[in-house]
């Protein structure tokens, strides 16, 4: 039963990410990306990692929706895009090499048991477990990630600010070209 579910999800994920990279229409790509992200959460649920599954849906799918909005702003989505079918050789080649890569990676990994540094506890939900590790062992990376987000926010606001256009064109004193 689990095996069937796994393969169904796996095939659907690969199919949707293939659409993401091959489609020329940005809205198709975005929708496929969103569905791929949701499908990945299915794998987490299969592995009894409900917490990560939910986070996957909230974080990634939320991010994709923001991307969606940007794609609508930047590209003319009404325009008809012709899907190119010419690069079949590259397509086949890349499929083949990616399958090979996956085989390469997974077969040895599954063959011998690797013990995790922080194994799950049997009788607790994994939200508690993840929280316990996140706020003890990984407290510092977690806080530094907060600084990173602050940096990204400051950077984004500064770059999108009005001052950037005002001085680019007309302030003689500033611009040397």
């Amino acid at each position, binding site marked *: 039963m689990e095996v069937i579910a796994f393969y169904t999800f796996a095939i659907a994920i690969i199919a949707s990410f293939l659409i993401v990279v091959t489609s020329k229409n940005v809205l198709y790509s975005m929708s496929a990306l969103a569905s791929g992200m949701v499908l990945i959460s299915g794998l987490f649920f299969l592995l009894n990692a409900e917490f990560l599954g939910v986070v996957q849906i909230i974080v990634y799918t939320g991010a994709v929706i923001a991307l969606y909005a940007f794609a609508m702003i930047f590209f003319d989505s009404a325009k008809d895009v012709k899907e190119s079918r010419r690069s079949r050789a590259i397509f086949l080649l890349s499929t083949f090499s990616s399958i090979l890569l996956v085989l*390469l*990676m997974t077969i*040895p*990994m599954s063959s*011998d048991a*690797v*013990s*995790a*540094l922080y194994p799950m*506890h049997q009788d*607790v939900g994994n939200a*508690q*477990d993840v929280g*316990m590790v996140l706020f*003890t*062992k*990984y*407290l*510092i*990376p977690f806080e*530094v*990630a907060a*600084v*990173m987000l*602050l*940096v*990204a926010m*400051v*950077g984004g*606001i*500064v*770059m999108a600010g009005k*001052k*950037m256009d005002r*001085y*680019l064109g007309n302030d003689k*004193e*500033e*611009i*040397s*070209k």
Partner: protein
Amino acid sequence: MLEKITIPLEALNLPTLIPMLIAVAGGLTILVVDLFKKDLDKSLYIVLSILFLTMDLGAVFDLELNQRGFFNVMLIDGIAVISQIVMIIASGLFILFAFSSQRFHEYRYPEFFALFLFMTAGFQFMVASDNLILIFVGLETASLSLYTMMVLHNKDKSFEAAIKYFTMGAMAAGFYAFSAMVFYGLTGSVELYKIFEVLHMRGFEPMILVLVASIAMLVSFGFKLAVVPFHTWGPDVYEGSSAALAGYISVVPKVAGFVVVIRIFEGLINLGIDWIEYILYGIVVLTMTLANIWALVQNDVKRMLAYSSISHAGFVMAAIMIGTTQANSGIFLYWILFAFTNLGAFAMLWVSHKRDAKYHERFDHPFEKFSGMVRLMPVGAVMMGLFMITLAGVPPFSIFWGKVYLISSAVNAGYIVLAIIMVLNSAIAAYYYLKLVVHMFLKEPITGRDGSVYMANASTSLKVVLGIAAFFTIASIFFVSPILDFTSFYMAMSGF
């Protein structure tokens, strides 16, 4: 239910975190000051940055060596301390470049200085850990700040440079994450000492996966350190960002990169994985040689310096590959000497930055700009000439000692061919540095110009920076031995 855990505060070892916290607090202070009072002069922010960097440096000196903190995530060993010292001092000197007499777009933003301090904190986190996750987060914090600071220069070329750097950086981050994932899959840990332990215990089986992970890691840091064949963004980024920031990029981020490469690859080489050594050997030779050959054909001084710093990075990578204690203490010796010389060279470019002055269709600092400089401005020409022959490795100036030390460590470790390649490359490099010297001392000046061009952007603090760089370069013969003792001590403390 999980049982409740209590952690005594002493067990966290808070002092390990103090230097980075000071830098982060500095960045936040600058943001808050800007909130309360708009349009303050940039000099306030520069001084605040220097103040916080000084406190940061003091806190680093105060650290006890060889301790871990915060559940073993923070690691303060010798290499972490010395690299933080080098990075903070170099950052402090480069932020002085902001005291330019002309006004520039980026210095209107208090955020520029806040980002600068966040970036310093990011690099500090990166070197003070052997946890792959913290290294990654620190690296990204620093890189994001750097991209933004590059854009704030606000010219077409700087946008291009930032986008290029961002795309390459994103790719490098992807490779890093991939590599960390494979290491985790192999060993069940993201901590380097544990990874090495498990790999060693299992005799590196399955070899193919260790290969995949190491190559991905190498590609990632190849991009960050701009070693051939991952260097393509380098010269464009140097060209697009201001000379002040280009000088910074050529020194500080690379220190952080070197530290992580030392931690990962020397660990792997010490475990006895031969092919990593062969791959690194190839990269080192390519980086030194090809970057030198490309530098020969550049028409722009800044692009030439970009290729030259790639080639210098190749020298340091050679030391990392050799991996003996002598080579390792040579890494920081070489890089400290290089940092001061490069500081001087980029400061000269920065003081000669003049708006409206057009020397070339495309480049800001073509060689022709410096033609006949000795007649117009003898002191400046002598300074620039000094930095150029120092970069070329002419004795008795600073980089010569670094080169000698690295080459001798190569010979001592039995890498005779590598030593010969290093010597040959120093000879090739002399050609393009001397090209600028020839332009300055032997060509006729372009008519209708006076010497003020070369000092258009100068101010007292920039002259002081130039003076420091020149003094350090000339007098380095007296400093080399103490610096070497210093670096050897710290490297030996961390067991490299």
